[in-house]
């Protein structure tokens, strides 16, 4: 729609008739062909149990509220904003070495593989080099270095997506069973064979590319840290 720019509060660039002309209102407003809303019946039939309760009853579909506030309270406006997945920084490209800043693997340098639909970044250590497995990581907690590993045309298998990392549904034990267990460490499930196979498959290409550059494997193995006189806003990454 041709919006008329604001010159001062309440004063637009174009007058009402000029704005209407720019919008083409002389052609008439378009009527949208929305289907008529489906009519829901005011009362519905509900079966009632018990011998003396006449089987069925007519019950209103939506009940009137039990309570009305003494004064009309202001309802907050409904927000029209919806969260979208984070945009990938231009400096982060498949093969970029990232420095993780938070979480279990903070300080580790890892290789970026791809961005998942949720916006999180899929990274790998590689596992053999620094113990970081295929993992999701938030872009905000990452420093992108300018060092890149040449992965070529390598594409991570499409089965590794957000659903792959979902936690398996654990059977919640009852309070009695837990009481009898008396705080003994819960039996850990063995790491699934399929996941370690996926890890090895992805790491094969990455490690091959890492070996091509001198010192890069040592670099990924080492942890990042600041020393005296080093300030991140003054450093080049």
């Amino acid at each position, binding site marked *: 729609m041709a919006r008329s720019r604001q010159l001062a509060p309440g004063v637009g660039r174009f007058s009402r008739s000029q704005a209407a002309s720019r919008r083409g209102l002389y052609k008439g407003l378009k009527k949208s062909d929305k289907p008529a809303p489906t009519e829901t019946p005011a009362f519905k039939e509900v079966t009632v149990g018990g011998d003396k309760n006449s089987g069925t009853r007519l019950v209103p579909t939506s009940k009137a509220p039990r309570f009305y506030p003494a004064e009309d309270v202001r309802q907050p406006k409904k927000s029209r904003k919806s969260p979208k997945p984070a945009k990938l920084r231009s400096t982060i490209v498949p093969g970029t*070495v990232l*420095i993780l800043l938070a979480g279990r693997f903070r300080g580790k*340098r890892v290789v970026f593989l791809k961005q998942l639909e949720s916006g999180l970044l899929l990274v790998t250590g590689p596992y053999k080099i620094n113990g970081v497995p295929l993992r999701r990581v938030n872009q905000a907690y990452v420093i992108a*270095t*300018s*060092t890149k590993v040449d992965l070529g045309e390598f594409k991570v298998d499409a089965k590794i997506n957000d659903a792959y990392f979902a936690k398996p549904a654990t059977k919640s034990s009852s309070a009695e069973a837990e009481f009898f267990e008396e705080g003994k460490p819960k039996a850990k499930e063995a790491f699934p064979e399929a996941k370690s196979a996926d890890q090895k498959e992805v790491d094969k290409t990455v490690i091959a590319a890492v070996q091509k550059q*001198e*010192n*890069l494997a*040592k*670099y990924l193995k*080492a942890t*990042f840290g600041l020393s005296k006189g080093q300030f991140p806003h*003054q*450093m*080049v*990454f």
Partner: protein
Amino acid sequence: MTDSTFKRFVEVGRVVLLKSGPSAGKIAVIAEIIDHNRAIIDGPTTGVPRQSFPYRHLTLTPIALTKLPRGAGSGVIRKQVEKEGTVAKWESSTWAKKRAAMEKRRSLNDFERFSVMVTKKQRRDVVRKTLAKAA
């Protein structure tokens, strides 16, 4: 008789290092002195446009062009600089080399900093081993 403590003078032909502005870090030649605050500087070979520049934003270097007429234009300065090899003299000075080293150090990226650390360790190791053997 001229036994002054001052060795570097503001004079026509003095090579100066610019401290601030868009051409900071580049060298230029004083073409003409305007007054006690400013001079006209020009650096045709180093990419400094001919302009008036205050002394406060200049550092004098020990290099000067020997033959430069007062108020020389950019073309004359360019010819003289090329003939005397002034830029090469500057680049080979310890001062310029230290500046270049500092700039390189500040511009290292994380991987380069790591590689420097590794090579320093290797050098240290070789030195230590030869020292231990010599002792």
